[in-house]
């Protein structure tokens, strides 16, 4: 199979280029894209990419495959290389460090910005804080985020304003804490987001939903935050 991989080594390349590699795939087995990258790396050590769990839970290997963001380890080659050619590029919109490795700095900065930790100053006593199964269910579809950045780097609003717009991943996390009945900082959290950019730059394009490898829905979470901001204003 023909695989076209984005290559860039800052020490030796003046500019990035696409490298075509012919990879022989084992018959009768649908490899994941990560397996294919591993096969290439066995022959050419200089190819760099991130990987860890290889089962879609650590979020290391977010890449762009034939135009769509996803995790290389849980994306079968047959699913993306429908034309017979696999094209692997780094996640779009972030600076490339080398080959498929991007600088996630601005993405993590937006995550930290929303204060991604529970805030509750009421003493809890010697046991857990109680939470009903119904209240706990409000966190489903939110807490599962793996910070792979597939969503935020597929979002035109984030490409345009990565410093000011929190982006779908950060906002999903923001809502995860807004929705948690154990968190007491709702007002402060909303006040921090109440400006024309942080939330309202979302244009409902929904690329985030279409690429999320965990099947999460950041657009819906952003909708909830908008509602909360609007009812706070009135």
């Amino acid at each position, binding site marked *: 199979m023909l695989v076209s991989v984005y290559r860039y080594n800052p*020490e030796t390349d003046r500019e990035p280029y696409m490298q075509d590699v012919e990879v022989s795939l084992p018959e009768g087995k649908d490899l994941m894209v990560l397996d294919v990258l591993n096969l290439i790396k066995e022959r050419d050590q200089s190819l760099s990419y991130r990987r860890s769990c290889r089962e879609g839970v650590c979020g290391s290997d977010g890449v762009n495959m034939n135009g769509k963001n996803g995790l290389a380890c849980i994306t079968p080659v047959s699913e993306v290389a429908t034309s017979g050619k696999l094209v692997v590029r780094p996640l779009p919109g972030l600076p490339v460090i080398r080959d498929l490795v991007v600088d996630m700095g601005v993405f993590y900065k937006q995550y930290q910005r929303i204060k991604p930790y529970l805030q509750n100053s009421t003493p809890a006593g010697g046991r857990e804080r109680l939470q009903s199964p119904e209240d706990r269910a409000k966190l489903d579809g939110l807490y599962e985020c793996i910070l792979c950045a597939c969503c935020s780097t597929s979002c035109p609003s984030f490409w345009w304003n990565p410093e000011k717009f929190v982006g779908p991943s950060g906002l999903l996390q923001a809502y995860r804490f807004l929705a948690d009945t154990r968190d007491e900082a709702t007002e402060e959290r909303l006040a921090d987001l109440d400006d024309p950019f942080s939330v309202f730059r979302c244009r409902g394009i929904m690329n985030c939903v279409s690429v999320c490898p965990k099947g999460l829905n950041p657009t819906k979470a952003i909708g909830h935050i908008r509602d909360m901001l609007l009812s706070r204003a009135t």
Partner: protein
Amino acid sequence: MTALRKLSFDAVVIGGGGAGMRASLQMAQSGFKTACLTKVFPTRSHTVSAQGGITCAIASADPDDDWRWHMYDTVKGSDYIGDQDAIEYMCSVGPEAVFELEHMGLPFSRFENGRIYQRPFGGQSKDYGAGGQAARTCAAADRTGHALLHTLYQANLKNNTTFLNEWFAVDLVRNQDGVVVGVIAIEIETGEVVFVESKATVLATGGAGRIYASTTNAHINTGDGIGMALRAGYAVQDIEMWQFHPTGIYGAGTLVTEGCRGEGGYLINKDGERFMERYAPNAKDLAGRDVVARSMMTEILEGRGCGEQGDHVFLKLDHLGKEILHSRLPGITELSKTFAHVDPVNAPIPVVPTCHYMMGGIPTNVNGQAITQVNGKDQIIPGLYACGEAACVSVHGANRLGGNSLLDLVVFGRAAGIFIEEQLQQGIEYNQASEEDVDRAMGRLNQLDSNDNGEDTAQLKKELQSCMQNYFGVFRDGEYMKKGREELDAMRDRVANIAISDKSKAFNTARMEALELQNLFEVAEATAIAADERTESRGAHSRGDYPERDDKNWLCHSLYHPETKKLTKRDVNFKPKTVETFEPKVRTY
């Protein structure tokens, strides 16, 4: 000497998984200058893959639950070579550590009364084995590790831990007094080599499951801390004890939680028989993991395996119904579809025992202080600590119970943090390292970078993994292990002679993989020698030529000494502080 940039911290924790981040959190909370140095961004650590939960007697599912029952189960599960003082500490302090996690925000699943949800797991009992199956594993659906790891990362952000993310620790720096004074590390993005100096160095580098060809472990589980300790000349304990998880997905190796069986799933052979009823009439599918893994292998070897090759069995879940699967085991449903092309709602998942966990590691006391033995006596290694899977404190002995790894890492990450905090409060100073000390620690990296013609990492890694898989798996035998040791002997010089063709600096993963393979080799060799020398069967260590447990000779820890490549014995602790000793008994389920 090479002029290296130097960074100084009160404490440096190597590893950003659950153990490392629990330790760094403890010290950062008290305002100490704490670094968490990790080769991957923290939430990419392997703790993220833990599924089923964290076992702890928080008395939620059963208000009468008792940590002493948990202790009994853990001692029995360890096949009696877990240290009873350490197990006592873990089980009794556990509830406090778990409630802290909840207070930090961990999104545990809940019971109707609002308390934390607990599910049954293997090897759990009430009333010291007399009261039937317990439900003691606290869960966030089947994504407990993910929830725990993210929560700890968030708590560290809140408390201003310094993260050295994507930094690779190469080797420990020891001064002439034998004090560990820090570590040599590579900042991966730039390739710069830095001396990270510290008053306390904590190894929380996790396991090394990648020594085997088939493993549930992440690519990054390469035993870096064990490699560093062995190269520094320190002994490792019970390193022959490797857990094979009963339910790795056939072909892919990815984990399917024991929680599946806790929720009512069971294993069947090709005849559709629930075979665990024959091997463990009481606990059945929830017997100890070593017992279940061996039973599965026996079914396969005796011709009752499933599939065309008859080389796996099935995990049946469809009878639980869609609702239970989607609410309690959503991650498993997803993994099974992706890697086995099976929807467990309709069809059973093909599974096979798969390397999962390293019970052995760097011996420590309950404060996380690393220990070595000199002339048969315990000696604390000044400046060095270990916790989590890299450590062997030992709470798991010869076989770990499901859900005890997450408890181990939060309890002992926390304990190490608390102890170092106290030491720092009393005022310890930096110990000086000379140029020679730093140069010595640079030796391996310099050798790799200056070697132009040598062995290929990928090729050697395959050979190593297949050797371990063939000769040191679920069933072991002296004759085969001898062959395995010979193969490893022949590999040692080649591993030292790895050459990388790409010597560039920026994000050079070839350099890291070469260094990782050298760590894997250290762990594999220690495993092989210790496994061959322990002439008995106990827990996960099962030998055809020595099928019985031998309490007369082997009711003890093994210590593997890297400089002599010899095994010595170390006493197991049978003196818990507040309860009676649990005496060794025949272990049945």
